[in-house]
């Protein structure tokens, strides 16, 4: 090795979290009594001992330079004894142990242009995937969609209330490296055309049995003559799973790749059971850098929810109360053949009752 490297260790696992807990948290670990949300980005947790931890939540773009992380460190060192944490939704949280320390912290964060919010009945940060920044199977860019959408909706992060939390997510393909399939409103990159088979490459790059097995609709079969595979085009649903196992079957198609919008999912058990998101819009063209057609459709859905939902009702709960037929009416979204399920769980989704709204 060219340089003097320290001795590597293996299978040590992550450091124990206790090394990183602020003293107020270490002292009151497991002894929290209640919490209160003080403003869209500030909450306080009170322990049995009477100790308090005040949290200020700040949005990040998830994709962070080391320079920005060091800036977070500067703030943590100045205000929080050098401690900080991140949330599962890519926010950064600064914690202090008394109310008097909140204002100076908030002031400095605001001065530096950070966006404080995301707590309570509003839009928190957006869970998303890598997109064109770093993924080979991306049908769209995730970071760009998040940025464009949140530039339109940021007031619901730092100021305005909603009936309940609205969880947004973006997945750049149907592999969905994120909880997109159970989000209030999610964007999913989708293909609309079948993969192309590069026959000369299949025999070197792909295992034919696993390529055949990767297809959920049995559209792919071996083509022994060509030492390759063939596709029954009419059976292909463009999921791209074959491309995941066989690089010689590219599916990206700039003219036809686009965005689907799914809505009404949730992961919490609050009130109603967790729900999958369902299809609201099957396809919108990729229109970078700001995807105006996508952000417009998201706003339509959000506005209808704000107008119709009761307090504490999540988007999916609201839709289930009013009925999906009414959802399409109040949002003005077009209902198309693609909305009717013909995949694995299709039968459960058809209306087996004579009751519906005109």
């Amino acid at each position, binding site marked *: 090795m060219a340089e003097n*490297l*320290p*001795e*590597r260790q293996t*299978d*040590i*696992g*992550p450091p*124990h979290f206790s090394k990183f807990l602020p003293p107020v948290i270490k002292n009151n670990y*497991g002894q*929290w009594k*209640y*919490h209160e949300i003080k403003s869209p980005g500030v909450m306080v*947790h009170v322990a049995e001992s009477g100790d308090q*931890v005040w949290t200020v939540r700040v949005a*990040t*773009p*998830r994709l*962070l*330079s*080391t*320079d*920005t*992380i060091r800036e977070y*460190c*500067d703030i*943590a060192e100045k205000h929080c004894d*050098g401690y900080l*944490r*991140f949330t*599962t939704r890519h926010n*950064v949280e600064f914690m202090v142990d008394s109310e008097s320390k909140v204002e100076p912290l908030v002031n400095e964060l605001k001065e530096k242009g950070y966006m404080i919010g995301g707590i309570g009945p509003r839009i928190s940060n957006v*869970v998303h995937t890598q997109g064109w*920044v770093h*993924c080979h*199977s991306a049908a769209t860019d995730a970071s760009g969609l*998040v*940025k*464009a959408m949140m*530039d339109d909706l940021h007031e619901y992060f730092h100021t305005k209330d909603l009936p309940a939390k609205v969880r947004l997510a973006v997945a750049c393909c*149907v592999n969905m*490296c994120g909880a997109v*399939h159970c989000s209030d409103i999610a964007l999913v990159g989708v293909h609309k055309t079948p993969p192309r088979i590069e026959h000369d490459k299949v025999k070197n790059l792909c295992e034919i049995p*696993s390529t055949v*097995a990767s297809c959920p609709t049995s559209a792919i079969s071996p083509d022994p003559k060509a030492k390759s595979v063939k596709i029954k085009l009419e059976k292909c649903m463009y999921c791209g*799973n074959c491309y995941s196992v066989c*690089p010689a079957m590219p599916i*990206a198609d700039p003219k036809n*790749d686009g965005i689907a919008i799914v809505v009404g999912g949730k*992961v*919490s*058990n609050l*009130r109603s059971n*967790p729900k999958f998101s369902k299809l609201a819009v099957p396809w919108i063209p*990729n229109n970078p*850098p700001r995807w105006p057609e996508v952000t417009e459709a998201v706003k339509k859905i959000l506005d209808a929810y704000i107008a119709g939902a009761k*307090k*504490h009702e999540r988007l999916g709960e609201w839709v289930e109360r009013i009925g999906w037929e009414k959802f399409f009416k109040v949002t003005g979204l077009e209902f198309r053949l693609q909305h009717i399920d013909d*995949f694995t*769980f299709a039968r459960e989704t058809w209306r087996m009752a004579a009751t519906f709204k005109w």
Partner: protein
Amino acid sequence: MGQKHQTPLLDELEKGAFPSFVKEIKRAAEHSEYAQDLLGQLELSYKEKVTHWKHGGIVGVRGYGAGVIGRYSDVPDKFPGVAHFHTIRVNQPAGFFYTSAALREICDIWDKYGSGLTNMHGSTGDIILLGTRTENLEPVFAELSSRGWDLGGSGSAVRTPSCCVGPGRCEWACYDTLELTYQITQRFQDELHRPMFPYKFKFKMAGCAVDCIASIARADMSIIGTWKDDIQIDQDEVRNYANSGMDIQAEIVDMCPTGCMSWDGNELTINNEDCNRCMHCIAKMTKALRPGKERGATILLGSKAPIVTGALMSWVIVPFMKMEPPYEELYDLVERIWEFWDEHGKNRERIGELIERMGFPTFIKEVGLEPHPVMVKEPRRDPFFFWSEEDIEK
């Protein structure tokens, strides 16, 4: 370093109120050629509406089969800085707590050997170090591991376990999600670093049914905190909520999914036997109501995203398990489940899909669980069911 490539499309995404990822890449580009060429390649993707990353590639550190995702540009001549742009997954501390000193240490290593770009965090929970060359992988690993950091999971392995903030800062945590996450990660280091399964296996620990870690949607095994006894009530605090304007009838009682509560204007009564512990009332009256004291977890199995035959959510396999160290009962269950998966699973078949294919009753029998009414939403509708030899009179 001046900007190497013009990026008129990406520049649009520097505008607007929400934090900009383009600004982040540009910041890194001031000192990183990787980030310079990433800007160039990403601009090309925005122009052509297509990704410019090639399909995978097997790279890694010695002795591990996981933790590094190989990534190569398909236009390396134009953007040599991202010809190799591999991801390193670093196992995050449970609960995502850090000291600034620890973060600075990681930043310094990453500026020395990589793009200076990260994700805090990846979807599964790891610290993502985004983009370096193959020859830098061993040095990064030596620098990280000698300072107490290890790599996370990838491929057909245990994926990096993760959890909610739990008892660190939440009064609803029904077990120590951080400690279990740490312990389970340590227990299964071999399975995490050396892929040996039919496909990936994810663990997520949620302290209560609010499920802030989205375990029910995103983990093969979802361990969700719950309790068995009565919700703790402070009636004075209930009255305080009423006096400060909460409509307890409309917001609490009428929204209870089981109808197990009543409010007479003075006292809130809960029929705990009928409560399904959904957390709505507790979440809305944080000062007045708290989970019960006999705490543990419900274990659910099988969730995954839509690939291959549709998305699944985890379903109940163990209604209640005490979740305290040394967690041997849990580890034993995990190992029996993996044995079943090893025995029957096809290549790239998640545990949830396998159970769908083989049947939940078969799984229950082979893994040695007891059938229980809470495992199902309703009993079967059809009259087609199997019997065993011992059920037949000879």
